[in-house]
């Protein structure tokens, strides 16, 4: 801060290029949205695989469960920054560049999908075994049990999982900004920190918080609305 006052440091709104800020917000939302679509699809499938393999008692299933589980744990727990750098060659191959918002998506998906998959698995496991037995007694097949019982009965938990994952995803997008992905994180870092415009950082933070609050509110509302327990 040097010898500047607080308001000169944090409330110097003249420094802000609102066009940039808007673009950064759009980039963040774009990265989050696109990654989340993929995360939800992959996470549901992976979560379903974990759930199904975990339910079976054969040796094959338990080996497969452990493999899927270890791989997904590995991606989930690798620090995001490291994962992002680690897969740069893969990213370049996939989207043609390792810079820009698009380039952040593979890393975002790779780290968040296993995270969501775990939440899906937990949500599915919490479906009452009694209800599943009742469906079996009605002659339901495995897939009928999945889409008529397990999924509908775990909707609130699936929604809560999406909310939590999306919010941590926004945090990741900010980090992705460091390798040139754009977005609010990148703006806060480059404009704000490197050029000493802390007001930009503050505004970027406020916008991120607003997005998080809105998402949390929406997620909570939907989870509650679908929960008839």
């Amino acid at each position, binding site marked *: 801060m040097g010898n500047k006052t607080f308001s000169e440091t944090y409330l110097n709104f003249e420094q802000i290029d609102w066009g940039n800020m808007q673009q950064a917000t759009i980039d963040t939302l774009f990265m989050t949205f696109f990654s989340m679509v993929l995360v939800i699809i992959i996470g549901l499938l992976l979560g379903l695989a974990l759930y199904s393999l975990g339910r079976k008692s054969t040796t094959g299933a338990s080996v497969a469960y452990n493999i899927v589980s270890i791989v997904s744990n590995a991606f989930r727990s690798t620090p995001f920054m490291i994962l992002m750098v680690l897969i740069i060659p893969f990213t370049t191959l996939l989207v043609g560049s390792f810079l820009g918002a698009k380039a952040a998506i593979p890393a975002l998906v790779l780290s968040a999908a296993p995270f969501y998959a775990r939440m899906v698995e937990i949500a599915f496991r919490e479906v009452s075994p*009694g209800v599943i037995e009742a469906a079996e*007694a009605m*002659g339901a097949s495995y897939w009928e049990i999945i889409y008529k019982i397990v999924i509908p009965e775990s909707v609130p938990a699936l929604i809560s999982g999406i909310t939590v994952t999306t919010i941590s995803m926004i945090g990741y997008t900010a980090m992705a900004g460091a390798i040139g992905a754009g977005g609010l994180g990148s703006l806060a870092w480059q404009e704000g920190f490197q050029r000493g415009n802390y007001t930009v950082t503050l505004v970027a933070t406020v916008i991120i918080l607003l997005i998080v609050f809105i998402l949390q509110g929406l997620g909570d509302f939907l989870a509650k609305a679908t929960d008839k327990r």
Partner: protein
Amino acid sequence: MALIELTHVKKSYAQKKTAVHAVNDVSLQVEKGDIYGIVGYSGAGKSTLVRLLNGLELPTDGDVVINGQNILALKNKELRNFRKKIGMIFQHFNLLWSRTVIQNIELPLELAGVKKAQRRQKAKELVQLVGLEGREDAYPSQLSGGQKQRVGIARALANDPEILLCDEATSALDPQTTEEVLELLLSINKKLHLTIVLITHEMNVIRKICNKVAVMELGKIVEEGSVQAVFSNPQQAVTKRFVQQDLEPEEDPEELRQAFLRENPHGRLVTLTFTQDNANEPVISQAIRQFKIDVNVVYGKIQQTNEGSFGALTVLLTGDTKEIDQAVAFFGSQQVAVEVIEGGE
């Protein structure tokens, strides 16, 4: 041929080193229209037994033949289709909380591939049958336990099954609601000629609606027959305990017994169990006239069953030991079961 025939059925689970025999060599027959009760304490194997009837569990040995169809001969898909014709209700109802009453009832119809309009129609009829009009669009969480079980029953009947399996269906309900649900079961048994197999640990459930009963202990059926016969003349210790559970008055009679014995140290305390056939006979007054004994009633109870009444009377017999012995023998000759509680030497 009976509707349900089990011959030497075994079900064992491998546990680390030993095998656990949940069901151990059970043979039984259920005729069409029966309300067949299986009673036992928890761990007796009755839950496994009832699940063998719809193939949720497959026997490790022996044959389960339902309506002439051996369950073991069915392939996956055939087994699933076969189950659609057997309804099942559960202790904890097992309704989908995410579906309304009517949607819950429609579920088995959806699984059977019934068209939407027909589904609705059928579900509405069932709502009426179980007396839930006006609650069609409620979610299970908005219903009482008894109402939830009614939904469970309606759902179990959706595919017009011939057999209804009840897995401790009233165990989570209060006595008043239990009564209502049992009455509903009895009425659908009559109205739809439905065969019901129920498992329970509550003797009053058996007494109120069953015509046949099997007593299970440690994976085996230890006693079986008409409710009347088994109740009035229990042979096995476990059966006696169940009958006792149902006959005993609410308050503990032990104190009462002790008080009687203190006053009459030479008396003999016996429990006489009367069956339908001799409950109306003046057996006791005949005994008093024939032998030089006094009879003092300690406590007693008469129960109505589906097919008649039976009762148990605990009395204190005083007099000469010889006379008492003769009186006890006399009771035995009159088909009254005698159980000496105290003072029998």
